[in-house]
């Protein structure tokens, strides 16, 4: 009977025969997919290689992306095969029982173990690449615990406010600029803070992202290694003109940078004198913090 013939396709034997083939197809497709991702897509993945941190992020994205095809194809092949093979055929009783099993301890066990191992591996991988490249370009709060070995880093303070970024350079007389130039092959410490609401300093090509919180100094490190232009965008919703809060910066040779910085320092000297003292945060504060914007004064003083 045709009914029996059809049910044969659902027998254990039939599926047992299919499994090695499915696995073969899976291995081949995954291999092709992963190789394509690693070699063809990989080098073009963002955020590029302008800094150590960017290159690290690119490596991470490339690595995780290489793991994607095996997972994707595993599920697709599995679903695809089931749907094609075991779909109700014309003339078949659609409500007749199919196979009767509720679980399979080996499959389940293997699934639990494999997913757990994979996940733990990914967590370890992520931790390693977070800790070793000094926080991987992310905001590390006021007192970072993962820092580069270099002693004299270039200090750049990023001050965000609605709706622009400015930069202060404590090593250049505390001047404040509206543009940003960075020397190549230099370890840089960004000190990110905000004057009003929460913003986020995202220097895409530098592989740097750190929230700019009022009253918090959020430190991020990066090491430049290529010349070029980078984009700075605000990446945390900060109000009406959030979408227009961006500018461009440049990584230039060290000599050019020195020249730019000295010129800026001279040009800004008059303004720099009027600025509040360089400080890690500038929130108006009655306690007298925040670069002295407000005089020490306590709202309860006369209570």
């Amino acid at each position, binding site marked *: 009977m045709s009914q029996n013939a059809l049910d044969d396709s659902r027998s*254990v034997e039939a*599926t047992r025969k299919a499994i090695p083939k499915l696995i073969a197809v899976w291995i081949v497709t995954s291999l092709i997919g992963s190789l394509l991702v690693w070699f063809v897509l990989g080098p073009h993945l*963002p*955020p590029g290689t302008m800094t150590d*941190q960017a290159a690290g*992020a690119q490596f991470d*994205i490339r690595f*995780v992306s290489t793991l994607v095809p095996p*997972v*994707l194809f595993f*599920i697709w092949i599995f*679903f695809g095969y*089931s749907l094609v093979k*075991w*779909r*109700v055929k014309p003339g078949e009783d*659609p409500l*007749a*029982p*199919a*196979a009767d*099993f*509720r*679980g399979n301890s080996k499959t*389940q066990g293997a699934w639990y173990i494999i*997913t*757990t191992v994979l996940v*733990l591996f*990914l*967590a370890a*991988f*992520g*931790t390693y690449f977070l800790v070793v490249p000094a*926080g*991987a370009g*992310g*905001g590390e709060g006021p007192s970072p*615990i993962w820092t580069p070995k270099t002693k004299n880093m270039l200090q750049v303070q990023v001050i965000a406010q609605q709706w622009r970024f400015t930069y202060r350079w404590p090593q250049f007389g505390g001047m404040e600029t509206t543009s940003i130039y960075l020397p190549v092959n230099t370890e840089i410490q960004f000190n*990110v803070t905000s004057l009003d*609401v*929460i913003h986020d300093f995202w220097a*895409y090509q530098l*592989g740097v*992202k750190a*929230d700019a*919180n*009022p*009253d*918090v100094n959020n430190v991020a490190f990066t090491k430049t290694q290529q010349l070029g232009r980078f*984009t700075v965008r*605000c*990446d*945390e*919703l900060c*109000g*009406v003109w*959030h*979408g227009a809060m961006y500018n461009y910066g440049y990584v230039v040779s060290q000599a050019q940078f020195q020249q730019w910085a000295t010129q800026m320092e001279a040009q800004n000297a008059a303004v720099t004198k009027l600025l509040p003292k360089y400080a890690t945060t500038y*929130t108006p*504060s009655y306690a007298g913090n925040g670069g002295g914007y407000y005089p020490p004064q306590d709202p309860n003083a006369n209570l």
Partner: protein
Amino acid sequence: MAIDYSKATGTGSSSGAPGGGGGGLLRPSIITGIIGGVIGWLLGHWIGNSFTQGYQQVQGSGSNDIAEFMGYIFMIIGWFAGLGALNYPIQKLFGVEAEAEEPVTEKGWTKYFRYTLDHKTVGVQYLFGMLVYFFTAGLLALAIRTELLSPTYHIWSPDTYIEIVGEHGTMMMMMMTSVVLGPFGNYVVPLMIGSKRVAFPRLEALSFWFTPISYFILLSGLWQGGFQSGWTGYAPLSVQQGVGQDTYILGFGLQGLSMVCASTNIVATIINYRAPGMSWSRLPVMGWSMLSLGFTMILSIPVLIDGLYVLALDRTAQTSLLYSGHGGSSFLWENLFWFFGHPEVYLLAIPGFGLVAEIIPVFARKPIFAYKTSAAGFIGLAILSFFVWQHHLFQSGMNPDMRPLFMLTTELISIPTGFIYLVGMGTLWRARIRLTTPMLFMLGVYFNFLFGGLTGVYVSDVPINVTVHGSFFVMAHFHYTIMGGVIFAFFGAIYYWTPLVTGYQLSEKLGKIHFWTMIIFFNSTFLPLFAVGLLGMPRRVFEYAHRLQFLNQWVSISAYLLGASLLFFAVTFVWQLAVTRKPTVRNPWGSRSLEWYVESYPPPAYNFKRVPVVLSWPYEYGDPNALPVADIVNETKDLDPVGRA
């Protein structure tokens, strides 16, 4: 408590309202609710303004947050008073409440506009309520996509744009929490567990009636200057905003209260009202998902309400909890918000998975694979979701040394998520698969969620998070999980249960057109956004790099087509229910689950003539000799399902 089928005696006339049963416009309904709301608003607003007498800057100005709050709070009270929801609690105060439950036998369409105690009516109310939410927020999404057609040319002014973004996000996130629990949890779960009623019908009704008013309040933000802080409402931006922000606080807060009521009811119902024989090991997976969902909500939503409340105080009572200059901290909001916010995102996934696991075996003619694993998966998701919230704050500079820990917990969540795939794949193995519309939608969930889950691994990897946080990549990630997951499951469930709920069969052909257009345009809308994000475009911006214009236009056009697909659903759905009305056959999908063995579709008042005794597991599709699921199965097998009550 005795079940009294007769009209309640004593003081409890229908919902005990003054003039109850008297009919006419004054009978409590949505109309009296609106009247009550309007009166309440006028009164509250006046009181608020008189509070602030003498404060020149605020009094009588458009930006008086106190008057705004007072107006809305009184409006809410007036609304519930007008609906008649307050009668019972007030009667209780005087000890004159009717001892028996009120009858739920009301007929006709007007009951859908009343505060009723019938869980099936509430389920239908929820279904349409949530569709209204979904379509409103969907239109807002199209408005966003229209702006993003061009990198520089503007359709909306920047403030309108950002307000639309905030409204869209908040409305969607509010609605998603109840999109499964509201319609299907309330309607179907009591039937599935063989109960004639729910544990707390008043809480359940209350939970629904919170939603129209929270919808209205939130929407009213649009004409009051809106709020620019998005659905995440980060302080201090949210403290700076005008009165539009108050609509966010109240709208979201009311939705929170609604969810607390709904979860309390569903948890108590599942635990206590299971029919004899419905042991824990026979509980449908949908029941397990609702239970995990309920507990998660109960333990996370109060924290959201705290956060919103603190924000409201900062905006009205001159505290400064969210502003560091006076001893507060903007990190406080981020913590309170995400301590709720992360469980919330899993609150969206769990019910979607519950529907998937519930419906797939029916169309596979096989027992669900690894039943216990799926239940464990829900519980695991629920528990773990409380320990990951800082992954939204990886770059915030807050507790940076904790990032490895939160990266670990976040990635661990992939394990219970993976269970759902195990269950689905095992169930399909050697199955007899019917590709009906509901089944297609459930398979669609698996297809879409794969992208959502895999990109979840990207965003939770801190070094990668540096690049993708706050970008369109994250936005695409959560649209894949939420829209691709729970919304697909939701539509599948609509196709699946409409015959039961209405007695009418939906066309398979139209359903399949809807499915295929929706999944194609959904993917074509959101897949490119991963690339857009990776290429450096932040979320919630109205200007972007020229090189991204092509991708953005592609996405916008796909979004319109996706909208058209959903419109197609709306039109055909209403058309088939209102005009063609093709009666369904009994148990059209051949399900073993108890809800299909009621006497008529829609199920009669009190669901079952007598409490069924459950005889077997609902998923015995593979065993032709299995006992029927309950003793009522044989009695109702040959009944004509439609038109009998």
